[in-house]
């Protein structure tokens, strides 16, 4: 044991005396810290926005409910907030939340006409990408590892100490193992420390933190082993580094890009514009259709409302909302195909990511943090379900119960986000 400690202390001393190693480690610490800090502030900004929206949404609806009594008018003017809370791991993996919307307000009109509206963030910033912990670990850390580990052997060779060291060292481990371990542990501490602090602040569960740490350390170990292994017999450090960086470019850029091209060629997704066009044509044509055409189609979905479809005027709200829903129904197939193709693409991308460790890590971490496109599509499904609940709440009032009482409005379904509870 003492022997081990002696080796480590010696190597630690060496490390501290090598200026560029210290600089690299410090840079890692600073970058990881910056990523965690900005991630935390982004997540808290998102949470605050949601809180503000909730309050504004509440008072806006109260205002409408105070002014309107008619069920049809109420449904027309009342908007309902939906949102997707960032998970308590989102600070480390901001994921796709800058591209997919995480807040939405809907009313009782056809959903297909509303759901693709997006309250996205600044596109030019989204295009540059954000620096988050996942980015630091998956893309940057391998480069730091390459710089730290590629010249372990080559630098000793070029300075002519290599053979001397090998023959005089007590064991292989005493020399290289201790050096590698010290560097690796120092790097892990610099990269992961800010994450632990961030996880503590965000209140992430210990299990998740352990899971993320395990993945990150395994990933970093992969790069360290690769760097050491490739550098073992080399005499020219830059040559080793060149091939390692080449591998990095392959994993981080080339494989994903080729995969993306291939997937986009194989999976054809319907044009999003066609969904809204179909829905809009259906809704608009309904004005000129015979009322019974719409109503007959409608009561197939809602047989219980069949006794109440007769109309006494050329315009009635129940008919209006019925043809809105029929518009959705008409576009449903396209809309489903649109979502299916996105899911298919995500699935195929998963296969591609097995060829690219950085991607695999990104996917695993954004999945754990519930910030990937799967999360975004789950949220979209929640909006759809909620919209359905609203329909079912309003229809009885629209069709036969008359104007809803204020007490009844209290029981209006509320959007309860399930994303906050970590799975």
């Amino acid at each position, binding site marked *: 044991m003492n022997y081990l400690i002696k080796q480590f202390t010696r190597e630690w001393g060496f490390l501290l005396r090598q200026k560029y190693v210290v600089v690299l480690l410090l840079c890692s610490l600073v970058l990881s810290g910056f990523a965690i800090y900005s991630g935390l502030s982004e997540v808290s900004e998102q949470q605050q926005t949601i809180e503000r929206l909730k309050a504004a949404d509440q008072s806006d609806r109260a205002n409408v409910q105070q002014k309107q009594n008619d069920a049809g008018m109420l449904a027309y003017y009342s908007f309902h907030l939906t949102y997707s809370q960032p998970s308590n791991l989102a600070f480390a993996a901001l994921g796709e939340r800058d591209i*997919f919307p995480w807040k939405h307000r809907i009313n009782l009109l056809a959903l297909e006409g509303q759901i693709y509206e997006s309250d*996205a963030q600044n596109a030019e910033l*989204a295009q540059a990408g954000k620096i988050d912990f996942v980015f630091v670990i998956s893309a940057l850390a391998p480069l730091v590892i390459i710089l730290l580990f590629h010249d372990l052997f080559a*630098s000793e060779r070029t300075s002519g100490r290599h053979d001397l060291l090998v023959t005089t060292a007590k064991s292989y481990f005493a020399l290289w193992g201790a050096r590698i371990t010290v560097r690796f542990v120092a790097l892990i501490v610099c990269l992961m420390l800010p994450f632990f602090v961030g996880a503590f602040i965000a209140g992430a569960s210990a299990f998740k933190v352990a899971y993320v740490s395990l993945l990150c350390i395994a990933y970093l170990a992969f790069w360290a082993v690769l760097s050491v292994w490739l550098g073992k017999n080399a005499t020219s450090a*830059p040559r080793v*580094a060149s091939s390692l960086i080449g591998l990095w470019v392959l994993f981080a*850029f080339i494989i994903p*890009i080729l995969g993306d091209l291939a997937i986009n060629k194989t999976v054809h997704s319907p*044009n999003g514009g066609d969904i809204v066009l179909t829905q*809009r044509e259906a809704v608009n044509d309904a004005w000129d259709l015979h009322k019974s055409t719409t109503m007959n189609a409608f009561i197939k979905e809602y047989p219980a409302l069949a006794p109440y479809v007769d109309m006494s005027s050329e315009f009635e709200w129940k008919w209006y909302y019925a043809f809105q829903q029929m518009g959705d129904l008409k576009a449903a197939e396209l809309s489903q195909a649109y979502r299916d193709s996105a899911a298919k693409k995500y699935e195929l991308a998963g296969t591609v990511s097995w060829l690219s460790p950085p991607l695999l890590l990104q996917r695993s971490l954004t999945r754990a943090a519930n910030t990937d496109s799967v999360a975004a599509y789950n949220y979209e499904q929640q909006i759809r379900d909620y919209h359905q609940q609203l329909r079912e709440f309003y229809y009885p009032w629209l069709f036969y119960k008359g104007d809803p009482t204020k007490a009844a409005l209290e029981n209006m379904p509320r959007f309860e986000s399930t994303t906050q509870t970590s799975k």
Partner: protein
Amino acid sequence: MSIHNFSKVVIVAKDEWRYWLRSKLAMTVLAIGLLLTLSSVVVTAITMHELSHARHELQSNAEQSFVDQPDRHPHRMVHYGHYAFRTPSPLSTLDPGIDAYTGNSIFLEGHRQNSAMFADQRQGTALTKLGSLTPAFIVQTLAPLLLILIGYSSISRERESQTLSYLLAQGTSGTTLIVGKGLALLSVVGLIIAPLAVSALFTMSAGESLLAVTSFVVGYALYLTVWVLLILLASSVFSKNSGSFTALAFVWILLCIVMPRVASTSASTAVPSTGKIETDFAVKAELRKLGDGHNTNDPAFKQFKQSLLEKYNVNSIDELPVNFRGLVASESEAKQTDVLNQFAEQRMQAELKQTQVSRYFGWVSPMVAIRSLSMIVVGTSIETHHRFLRETEQLRFDFVQGLNKVHIEKLNYQDDMNRNANAAATQKARVSADNWQILQAFNFTVDSANIRAQRSVPAFLQLLLWIAVLVGGIKFVGKRLS
């Protein structure tokens, strides 16, 4: 520099090429670089052409289906609405910029300003988060790395193999050596940029101006020159190949990988922007004061009614020679649009301010500078998207007011009021489909080349400053070399 010196520079450059031709690493790197650039140029050109074609078609379809609508109540057409599509600029074949990150279509209807829908990125695989096969990404991010791999040892190699003192003793000055090596590297830059330049020239046949093409090519040439200078500097300063390599790799990571993201993260932290949903609450509060244009009895229109009666010198709205409901719709649309535009403008200004903050990082990273320069010149920056939003808003306002005019002039007020009485009355409250011709054809084009060039001036200055500082540094080092 005298002719004699110049011929020496050329000899040095030729020698460097000879060295590269014999080096497996240099040849591999060069081949990969050219392959990547070429394939990115071809792939992106095809993608953007397909997009452009598809959106043109969607646009004309949308216009066709609007004018093909049957006889209707004009207000129904206001809600039927219209679609506008953002067709990409000719040069976007080289830098699609934010095209995939913003919605490319927008639904235009009365009383509302919708946001753009269907960002392509959302139907994507999320595989291209780190980089995509576009000429912009390849040249901005990967080309510097390739230059480093080829050039890191250009001077330090001579020093390490002790040929440097020999060369200097023979009368080649340090400056000549550096300039010669620089010339060789610049010729590689030329090779990388050539496919871009050719492709850029092709866009002139699609109507792009020479000014934009030139700014684009010159911008990239300046950018890669910055990297050549950085490489020369590092290679002269460090006594060992490995030192030069490590330093350059580190600088590359910092400038190309880290800085762009630090820039965007800092910008969104420094200038938080309120989302559309949130500002919509304020918009709604403002709009409520204006009254509901569907409801002629809304007290907000009382004064408007009075002024109309006086204008036409009649006692009641029934006696007006025009349709009062149409007038109210038109009046309230105009007022609403003022409010909507005011808020939309605020939001765009905030977004612009955010973007500006991220662009300031161009002073510390040439990659950030070329990134904004490229998108601005090509016309795929945030400004272009804002232009799209403004133009579609104009289109929206024009056709809605056009329909309101039809409503005012061609639909009898009494018929209009009775429209829901029975099927025959509904039939009567319609106008002929000929009126739908008021819709203007929409063809989105980017800002003029002059405006784009003006916007790109700060980015050019950023690159030029980098060059000036680096040339100064190299001069200093070059003298010490001798």
